[in-house]
Structures are given as structure tokens and as C-alpha cells.
């Protein structure tokens, strides 16, 4: 069992030093750690830094940077609850004023991006600074389809990557997140996902989004979409369920003033036929299960979609929003087993991906389509609020 306090008291007493910034580096290969230390040395004064990591720092080319060992954890993607707890514990112990969390593959972030993240917090502009990555159009699709639109519609936040694996935060934000993470650790779920953006919104803390350009995002150890979609979406649904009292109140989304780096284009065309076939197969076989979860109008929309040719295949934004909201309500009501529920969502998600890639292939900017999807989620918010409060059993 992982424990929250991985830095022992003896170690803590021996190494407790003042540091302006505590940097928590997730487990990663030695060459990546070396590159990160090089970037930090280029951008920050060494005496202001304290790096907490489970990686072995011996033999590093930057001995001037103080490195504090923490107990390694099993989680490699994304940043686990126990990592938040460890980072905040180390920050408080060493009187750090800000915390920078860097996930696996953070060596691809430029020194300027690291500086921008830290400045956003240290100059008291915000309590939480999250990066805005520039990913290819065929990457980060679960984020574009589900995580970003849901977070924007329900928590009124424009953060494009709510599940970012790098972030900077003030001490009060870190304490807030550590409190939430500690609950997971106490429940023997040290690898649980923590959602910093929704936590900050509920706490009324300010969020800043920093353009960091391209980044090599680590992929889950288990590449099976069935497992990872269930993990991430299930965690997001649980977080939304826990914060229902907050998001049911109407909130106005703040206007966007800044522009970010455009998405890089994908290399070559994308074959969407397998995804469309998967959706059609599911439509033929999963009617009984979808019928328990989805509203009749949504089922009708899916029926129409199932006969569309792959070249013209596109999931309407409103239909997708209602489908996700219906699954969210079913998750809350436990209409069917939650494992089954997440499994039944996969073909629908693949149908959205196929439509999205078709839209992008037709020349539309990917970001414009993602924004249209998010806008549809916003306009359908009343639907989820109504169904959440008065969950009609129209299909039972």
C-alpha cells in the first residue's frame, strides 16, 4: 500500500531547506530527468529550486540543483493522487512558495515554457497555471471529445487540457489538491486521478493557461482504449458527481482574450472505416444496453447515423453532447453496471472520432470543430441539469 508521506521524517529533518520553488518530477528515464534538470538550470537560479523525484539523481550533470528523493509509485500516467500528496508534503516541509509538477516526457517542454508556468503562479497572477499544448489533430482525442467539453460546460472553464500532466500551483492551491488527493490515498486509491481545474473552480481560485507549444505526451502503459477510456471517463464522471452542487448553478463562461499556437496537422490521411464499422456493429448489437441509457431521440439520431456512408460520416454536435450527458446520468443512477456503461460508450466515442477526423479532413480547422462541440455541450447544459435533478426513467 502506498503511503502519503513518502519522505521519511529523518530524511525531512536532514534535508529541510528553504526553496522558492519545489519541482516534483514524475518517474521517467534518466536521460529525460537529465534534460529537465538542464532546462531548469538554464532558466532558474539553482538555490531557489528543490527537485523532488523518485528517479535516481546520481551522476547528474547539474549537481548544483538540490534533489530530494521521494518514494516511487506505480502510477506513470497521469499524475496520481499520491504524487500530489508527496509534492505538497515536500513543499510545506521546505517552505516552498510554489509547486511545479512535471509529468513523464516533460523534457520536451522548453525552458521558456517552464518559466512561463512558474511566473504565472509566482507573480500572483493565478493559483493554478496549466499548459496549453499544441497537439496534432489525431492526438488527445478523448480530451477533445469528452473531457474539455464537459469541463467547459459544467465548470465554466476554458482550460483546453483539464487533465494536464504538468502544472504550476500556489501553495494554497497545492494544499487544496493535496486534501482531495489524500482522501483517495486514505481510500486505498493512490493511483486515482485528481482533477485540478474543477477543484480550482469549486474553490474559487484563479486559473491561468500558458501556451507551451508542442509536447510529447506520454501514452498510458496499457494502450487498450477500452481500459483507458473507462479509467479516465469514469474518474471524470465521478468527479462531476461529487461536485454536482457546484455545477448545477448557472455560471457565465469568461470570454477568451488570447490565442494559442495552432494544432499541427496529422501526417497523411486517416482511415476511419474501422471506427465506422465498429459503431455500426455496436448499433446492431448494443440496442438493448443503449436503450437503457439513451433518450429515444438520441437513439433515433444514432439510427440515422448508422446508415451514413463513411465519407460523409459525422456525429452531430448536439447528439454527441446528449449522448455524453445521458451516460453521465446513467453513471450517477447506476442504471447498469458502471464497467458495462463505459464499455458501451466506446463505440459511440469512436463514431465521434471518425466524424471529427472527417471534418478535419474536409479542411475545417480541428480547433474550430472542437470549439463547436464544446459550445453544443454548453447549450445543452439545461438538459443535463434537468435530467440530473429529475431523472426520468423513460426506457425502463
Amino acid at each position, binding site marked *: 500500500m502506498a503511503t502519503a508521506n513518502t519522505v521519511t521524517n529523518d530524511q525531512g529533518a536532514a534535508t529541510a531547506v528553504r526553496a522558492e520553488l519545489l519541482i516534483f518530477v514524475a518517474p521517467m528515464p534518466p536521460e529525460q530527468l537529465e534534460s529537465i534538470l538542464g532546462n531548469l538550470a538554464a532558466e532558474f537560479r539553482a538555490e531557489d529550486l528543490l527537485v523532488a523525484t523518485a528517479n535516481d539523481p546520481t551522476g547528474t550533470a547539474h549537481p548544483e540543483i538540490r534533489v530530494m528523493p521521494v518514494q516511487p509509485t506505480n502510477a506513470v500516467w497521469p499524475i496520481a493522487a499520491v504524487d500530489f500528496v508527496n509534492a505538497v508534503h515536500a513543499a510545506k516541509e521546505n517552505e516552498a512558495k510554489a509547486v511545479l509538477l512535471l509529468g513523464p516526457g516533460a523534457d520536451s517542454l522548453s525552458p521558456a515554457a517552464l518559466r512561463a508556468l512558474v511566473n504565472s503562479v509566482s507573480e500572483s497572477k493565478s493559483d493554478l497555471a496549466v499548459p496549453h499544448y499544441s497537439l496534432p489533430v*489525431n492526438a488527445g482525442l478523448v480530451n477533445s471529445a469528452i473531457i474539455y467539453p464537459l469541463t467547459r460546460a459544467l465548470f465554466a472553464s476554458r482550460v483546453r487540457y483539464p487533465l494536464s500532466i504538468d502544472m504550476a500551483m500556489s501553495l494554497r492551491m497545492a494544499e487544496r489538491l493535496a486534501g482531495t488527493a489524500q482522501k483517495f490515498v486514505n*481510500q486505498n486509491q493512490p493511483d*486515482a486521478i485528481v482533477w485540478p481545474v474543477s477543484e480550482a473552480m469549486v474553490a474559487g481560485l484563479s486559473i491561468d493557461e500558458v501556451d507551451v507549444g508542442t509536447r510529447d505526451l506520454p501514452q498510458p502503459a496499457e494502450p487498450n482504449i477500452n481500459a483507458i477510456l473507462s479509467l*479516465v471517463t469514469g474518474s471524470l464522471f465521478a468527479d462531476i458527481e461529487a461536485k454536482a452542487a457546484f455545477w448545477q448553478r448557472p455560471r457565465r463562461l469568461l470570454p477568451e482574450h488570447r490565442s494559442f499556437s495552432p494544432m499541427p496537422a496529422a501526417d*497523411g490521411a486517416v482511415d476511419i472505416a474501422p471506427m465506422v464499422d465498429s459503431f455500426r456493429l455496436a448499433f446492431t*448489437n448494443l440496442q438493448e444496453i443503449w436503450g437503457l441509457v439513451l433518450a429515444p431521440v438520441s437513439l433515433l439520431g444514432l439510427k440515422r447515423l448508422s446508415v451514413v456512408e463513411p465519407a460523409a460520416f459525422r456525429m452531430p454536435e448536439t447528439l454527441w453532447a446528449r449522448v455524453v450527458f445521458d451516460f453521465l446520468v446513467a453513471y450517477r443512477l447506476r442504471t447498469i453496471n*458502471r464497467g*458495462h456503461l463505459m464499455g458501451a460508450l466506446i463505440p459511440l466515442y469512436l463514431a465521434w472520432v471518425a466524424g471529427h477526423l472527417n471534418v478535419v479532413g474536409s479542411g475545417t480547422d480541428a480547433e474550430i470543430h472542437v470549439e463547436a462541440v464544446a459550445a453544443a455541450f454548453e447549450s445543452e447544459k439545461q438538459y443535463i441539469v434537468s435530467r440530473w435533478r429529475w431523472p426520468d426513467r423513460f426506457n425502463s
Partner: protein
Amino acid sequence: MERLIGMMLQTVQNYNPPPPITNNSVPLWTHISDALQQSVYRVLSLFIAVLPGILAVFVALTLFTLIGMGMSLLLRRGLAFVKFDERLNRGNPEWTPSSSPTMLIARGAFWGCVLLGLVIGVSAFDASYSTGTPLPISLLPYLTKVVGAILVMIAGTVIARFLARSVLIGAVNAQLQYARFLSLGVKWLVLVLTAAMVLDHLEVGGKIVELAFGILFGGIVLTLALAVGLGSRDLVSRSLEGRAEPRPERVPPPEVVPKPVEPIRHETIRHF
């Protein structure tokens, strides 16, 4: 209730059975009346003999229902006090039933008490019912067996539905064309097994059930095996061909064999 029983007992005690018919001049209606009175006497005797048993069933059921309600209330409060749900979730974060563990335990205790009351009531009924009538006596043990059989049937149905859905969703996501067929096969396998267990529990059919179950179960398994085997024929043959073909020892240089431009496959899409 006591008053009613008292009146019935008094009626039976005061009842004088009619003398045997010896005179042929007695009118017909007297014979009919006597026959009816004898019938009423037998029915009342039987009813009075059974009444304490029925009363025992109701008393036991009511008593144990009340005990169950009390236990349920105590368990709910006690488990909530010790934060049982929270502690259990530490070990099992994927708790999926629609009710909390505390509620399930409380309901289980309540229905367990009701079931116990029913069993004790039936036992009391059995003990007090001593008329010697063979048919009802032989049916009595069936009451408990029927309850057990119903429980087995409910459990089997729930498990069959869960497994059928698991297989269906898994097969669809694996893009197996025969997903529904596979799911139905698994469902009927479990249902047939459940039916055989229920009949065996009720001691109905004897060896015929075992034989029929063996034939049906084997038939379903064979059908599934054939379906999966035939459906995956191409996959297996491709796999075997891939293993059988020797790998080329020399890889031609890239400039000799131009690399074909392939579109991004489904697997290369990065969902995260």
C-alpha cells in the same frame, strides 16, 4: 381470534353425531342433512387441527419480521456510526451496485429474518399438523426446497444477465461479428445450468434432468465452439500462415523496394 376459536371448539364439542340410519322410512332430506352435517364436522375438525399450525406460521412470521426490522435499523445505524461504507470502499473502490453496502447488509438481515420466520413457522405447522393425511405432509418439505430453488433461480438469472452483457460489450468492442450470438450462448449456458440446479434441488426428474442437462450444455458449448471457430477461420489461417512462412534473411535496402505510403491506421490514433 381467541373468541372465534372458542366458538368453533364449543360447536364441535356440542355437536352430536346423528345415529346410524336403520329405518327406511326416514325421509330423504334427513339423510342429506346428516351427510352434510358429517361433512361439516370433518371439515371443522380438520380446520381446528390445522388452525394452531396456521396461527404458528403467522405468529412466527410476524415476530421474525419485527425482529428483522429491528435488526435492520440497528445495523443501519451501527454501520453508519463506524463508517462501514467508507472503510469497505478502501478495499473495493469499484463498488457498483445501486445501494450502499450498509443498505444491502441491512436489507439482507431483514429478509434473512423473514425467511427464518417462514422456516420456523413451517416447522411449527409441520409439528402441530398431525392428522396423518399423507399428501400435505409430503408437500411440506417442498416449501423450504422451493424457497431455496427460487433463490438459486434468481441468482442464476442475475449472473446470466451480467455475463451476457459483459460478453456482448467485450465482443462488440473487439469487433467480433458474432457478438450477439456469443452473448446469447453464454446466457443460455448459465440459464440451463441454473435450471438443472433448480430441478436437482427440487428432486424433480432425477437422472433425466442430468442427462438432459448434459446434452443441452454440451450442445451449446459445441455450437459456440463451431461458431467461434468458423467465424475466426480467416484469423487463424492468417496466423498459421504467418508462422509457417520463413522470414527473409536479407532485407532489401529502402531504395530498391520503395516503402508504400500507408494511411494512419485506427491503432495509430492517439486518444490521449
